[in-house]
């Protein structure tokens, strides 16, 4: 034994959790959704996700190595998660160069300019996605019709998403019941057999991922449940008031990016609140803004915008919403 003993302040032991393991658990939780997307969209899903992941990691590496000249941290897994989530928010037929531009915006603009992991106020993957949606509206809204493993990549047959069908139809004065005939059955939507971005189809796969995140204690239930519950209640009220104009809550939950957003995007550690009470408010906010955009706004889908808007309120919530301190109120039990 060397004669010197290490001396440091307590605690002298540490839990098993690391940043890397948490990120890895998110990646594992996304696997069912990835399998679903490959099953419905074929090669395109693989190309888009792989391009997004590779370019996110490469951009982070290049920026750290040559611009910031800081120790490399790409092994922490956060760029990998951003890459997967960005890819999952894209249609499976989007050209590679657009993905690379989107990844650059996500990593360079939304994440590294603020100081890298832990410092970005907005969800990087969503900043990248919204940038692409505004800059390349045509490519970002042409959705391949799911035709299994044989679906082509850029030459895929495209169609509208269920949300877009309803939005356009209502605008053109068609009746909701007629329009509902054009969209997939709830069972197909649960499985993921519908048009949409890579990761958002397949409710069952996403819920399996949610269960994994809860079991591994990566996230708590507060944010996903409050988002989903708010959307269900809000669209439920609208549907009860006017069932001829407004789709039912089940449709709203299964169509579009509600589940992907609520489970994986809104729960991003860095850009979500720190205290359970604030998490619930944040989740409700996302739910309300999503429904407002979907029902009254110009876009058929509003989850991305809703999350980014609520991201902006997170510093405020962290400053003013405090956990219940021990001994705050005297209780005689």
């Amino acid at each position, binding site marked *: 034994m060397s004669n010197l003993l290490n001396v440091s302040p307590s605690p002298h032991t540490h839990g098993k959790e690391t940043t890397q393991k948490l990120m890895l658990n998110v990646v594992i939780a996304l696997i069912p959704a990835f399998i679903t997307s490959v099953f419905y969209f074929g090669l395109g899903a693989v190309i888009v996700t792989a391009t997004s992941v590779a370019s996110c990691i490469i951009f982070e590496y290049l920026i750290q190595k040559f611009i910031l000249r800081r120790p490399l941290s790409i092994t922490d897994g956060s760029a990998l998660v951003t890459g997967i989530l960005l890819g999952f928010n894209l249609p499976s037929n989007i050209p590679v160069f657009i993905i690379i531009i989107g990844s650059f915006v996500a990593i360079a603009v939304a994440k590294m300019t603020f100081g890298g992991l*832990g410092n970005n106020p907005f969800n990087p993957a969503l900043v990248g996605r919204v940038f692409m949606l505004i800059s390349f509206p045509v490519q970002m809204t042409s959705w391949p019709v799911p035709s299994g493993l044989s679906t082509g990549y850029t030459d895929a047959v495209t169609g509208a998403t269920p949300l877009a069908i309803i939005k356009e139809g209502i605008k053109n004065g068609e009746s909701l019941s007629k329009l509902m005939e054009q969209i997939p059955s709830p069972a197909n939507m649960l499985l993921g057999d519908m048009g949409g971005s890579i990761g958002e189809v397949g409710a069952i796969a996403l819920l399996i991922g949610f269960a994994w995140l809860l079991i591994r204690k990566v996230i708590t239930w507060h944010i996903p449940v409050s988002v989903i519950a708010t959307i269900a209640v809000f669209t439920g009220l609208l549907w009860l008031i006017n069932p001829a104009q407004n789709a039912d809550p089940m449709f709203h939950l299964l169509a579009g990016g509600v589940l992907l957003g609520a489970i994986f995007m809104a729960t991003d550690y860095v850009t979500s609140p720190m205290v359970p009470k604030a998490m619930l408010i944040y989740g409700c906010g996302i739910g309300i803004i999503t429904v407002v955009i979907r029902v009254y706004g110009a876009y058929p889908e509003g989850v991305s915008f809703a999350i980014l808007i609520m991201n902006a309120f997170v510093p405020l919530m962290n400053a003013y919403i405090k956990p219940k301190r021990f*001994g*705050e109120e*005297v209780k005689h039990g």
Partner: protein
Amino acid sequence: MLKTFSTGGVHPPENKITASAPIEYLPVPESVVIPLSQHIGSPSVPVVNKGDYVRTGQLIAEGKGYISANIHSPVSGKVSKIDIAADSSGFRQNSVFIDAEGDEWVDTIDRSNELDTEIRLSSEEIIKKCLASGIVGLGGATFPSHVKLSVPSGKKCEILIINGVECEPFLTSDHRLMLEKGPEVLTGVSILMKALKVEKAMIGIENNKPDAIKNMQKLAAGYKGISVYPLRVKYPQGAEKQLIKALTGREVPSGRLPLDVGAVVHNVGTAFAVYEAVQKNKPLFERVVTVTGRDLSKPGNYLVRTGTPVRKLLEAAGGLPENTGKIINGGPMMGKAISNLDVPVVKGMSGIIVIPAEESKREETKPCIRCSKCVSACPLGLEPYLLMTLSEKSLFERAEKERVTDCMECGSCSFTCPATRPLLDYIRLGKANVIRMIRERNIK
């Protein structure tokens, strides 16, 4: 559903290696070093001089002021000097050095092992006896017991809570006491009840010690007003405020004392020491210390005289392993790393843990990912990530508003942080500065 506290908490690996190792008597060392400050409060004042012959159990230093404690000689022999020595925290403080010659006890101590359950002393006499015998809280905080037993006028103690939780990993000294000295501990509890004039005592024991729970429950049936409660395992349940919350549902307000919710908490080790002081006239000069570590050949629980060098304990436990990287006085969550094997056992030392080199260093600090795991782990409902940032940036006024002084330094935040950030280190820094600020304000 078993009782526990509601806010925060973590589950460090228990590692109770020595749970089934009976208490062994460690032979009297050749020489001892007795620090004069081994309790909370003013250091004691020596009442012996160099060259004096003292007997085991003889008073060698007297408490100075109300919050202080007497110290008794753990051996018989000659005082060789009174000089500065490093204690287990690395503090250099005045200590009495004694070279042992045999083991001649003062005559007033009853050395028989016979159980004596008849309490002859009155409430006031019990408190006086604790004061005279140098009894301090043996759970680690070493707060003088006579102070805790003297309920100020205007306050009322309704319930005595006995801490048998031992929530720190590795430590088993209280566990063994409850198994081997159950009747003595329970008599001690009855004595404490009489001193506090309460009718009810609750003993909280975590569910990872089923044998101790069973033994204490069985024995407690024969004692009036004492009940034993198994608790769900969760760190830091042995913290005073958390234990009160777990057992009674009451929350001690920030900056207040347990007595403000009508409770007084004592450790099972203290109850045993009180039994010995009151029934056997034996002052506090020995205690059970768990000596443990994964690579020790003979880890165990040892009854040790205070002043014994830690080196002797490690020799008894099979010697220091080759790969030792760190030695902790206390538990791995709140204990202090020691830098020197010659530091003495003191009243508050519950365990010595030997940590192998590969587990003795901290991991690299990574950026905070704001996962909020520290917020959910904090048993006091604080926000460790925020307190760390505020301390880092010297924003102490804000740290005070965020109640940094509530922190009891349990270490749950640092333990749980996936980015291995030194949360508690910075919180301590903030706390020290805020306490200094408050003091300066009060002077003005």
